[in-house]
């Protein structure tokens, strides 16, 4: 109990004293996660929508695979990305290992199935609602997908936020491919793991509370900007 209180105090002091290291780590966490989120959304939302409107031979198998990938163990993803980016790997020439870019790649792999699966669920429901109308209006496949994405954008935001939640709290993969290098690849989760290992539970908890606060602020900001709860909306 005292450790939690100490953690809260540590978080408070880190924030009010504008601790330079904390800001650096927090901003890197945000930059890595938000970049991964944008890239993963750009891949997963069209994929989820396509799976909702298009029938093809291995559609059910593809959906099952994406749903299964939602539970990908991050350490395994980290290991695979590590091997791909290591000097002996196929992308070793790019020198991306132990950089924020490697962390972004790992996070994209982890969160894309989460976003695609939730997007597919909501697009499937909307497609069932709109199917007859959009067919009767003689729309092209592209027009149907655009319409569903636009009209279902608030549900898609939920999908993206689920991806953000998974990415911002991820530690296993980013630790492996980022290396937790001070001032280069250290983010909030890897810093927490480090401080816990050193036995500085108060600081680790403090960083943990900052991480939780950051996640809440980003969620609130996105909800406010997209006006999801505004009266008169649906």
């Amino acid at each position, binding site marked *: 109990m005292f450790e939690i209180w100490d953690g809260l105090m540590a978080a408070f002091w880190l924030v009010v004293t504008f601790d330079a290291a904390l800001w650096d780590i927090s901003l890197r966490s945000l930059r890595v996660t938000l970049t991964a989120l944008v890239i993963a959304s750009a891949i997963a939302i069209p994929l989820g929508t396509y799976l909702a409107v298009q029938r093809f031979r291995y559609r059910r198998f593809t959906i099952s695979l994406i749903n299964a990938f939602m539970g990908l163990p991050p350490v395994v993803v980290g290991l695979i990305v590590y091997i791909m980016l290591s000097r002996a790997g196929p992308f070793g020439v790019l020198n991306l290992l132990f950089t924020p870019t490697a962390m972004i790649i790992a996070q994209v792999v982890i969160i894309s199935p989460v976003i695609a699966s939730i997007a597919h669920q909501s697009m499937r429901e*909307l497609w069932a609602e709109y199917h007859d*109308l959009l067919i*009767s209006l*003689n729309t092209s496949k592209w*027009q149907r997908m655009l*319409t569903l994405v636009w*009209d279902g954008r608030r549900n898609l935001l939920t999908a993206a936020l689920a991806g953000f939640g998974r990415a911002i709290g991820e530690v296993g993969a980013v630790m492996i491919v980022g290396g937790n290098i001070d001032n280069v690849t250290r983010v909030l989760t890897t810093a927490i793991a480090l401080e816990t290992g050193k036995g500085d539970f108060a600081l680790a908890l403090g960083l943990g509370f900052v991480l939780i606060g950051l996640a809440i602020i980003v969620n609130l900001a996105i909800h406010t900007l997209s006006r999801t709860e505004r009266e*008169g909306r*649906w």
Partner: protein
Amino acid sequence: MSALFPLTLRDVQVRRKSKRVIGPIDLVLDPSGPTILIGPNGSGKTTLLRVLHGLERVNKGHVGWTRNDPSRHAFVFQSPIVMRRSVAENLAYPLRLLKTPKQEIKQAVDDWLQRTGLTAVRNSPAPRLSGGERQKLAIARALIRKPDVLFLDEPCANLDGYATREIEALLHEAAANGTHLIMATHDMGQARRLAHGLLFMLDGKIHEVGSAADLFAAPSTDELLAFLRGDIVI
């Protein structure tokens, strides 16, 4: 009447899971006014409308329009499908698909809002409208593209007399402006008010066809006579 007619159906049959839904139907339709489909529940009225519009595939036979142009058709469903957009955006949607200039879209939307009495709710979310308002919106959205043929599947089911009268006024106006109406209804009063031609369906087949004046005055089969009297016809 229109370059799309005459419409010819030859040996049209629709089956679902080996059960015959409609057919065989042989029919030549070259109407000079609104055509009304009547018949008991399950007689195949909705399926026939969907086949004519191209929403449903036939298992056997052929549906032949003189000029096959699906963009000149529109469909109003029994449960109006409204998009998760504002009322005005719902009306603008079909015109946007046709890449109509913005100024023309605005004029058409304003015109239809005024004709349907929906101006006061133009920026309200369409899913929040009442049943009658939603159906008026669906009809206006179908008519805004000035279709040659408008299919309506019991558009006034579950609506009160006032809403029914407003919708019938819109339909009279559309018919007067050259849109051919093909409508299924259970409401014999409405059929008498709107019909120029009449199709009586029973057990998935066209049981009687002719001018509304003739068939209402002197039905040539016992089944139609019983149906018009309000008896239960199976």
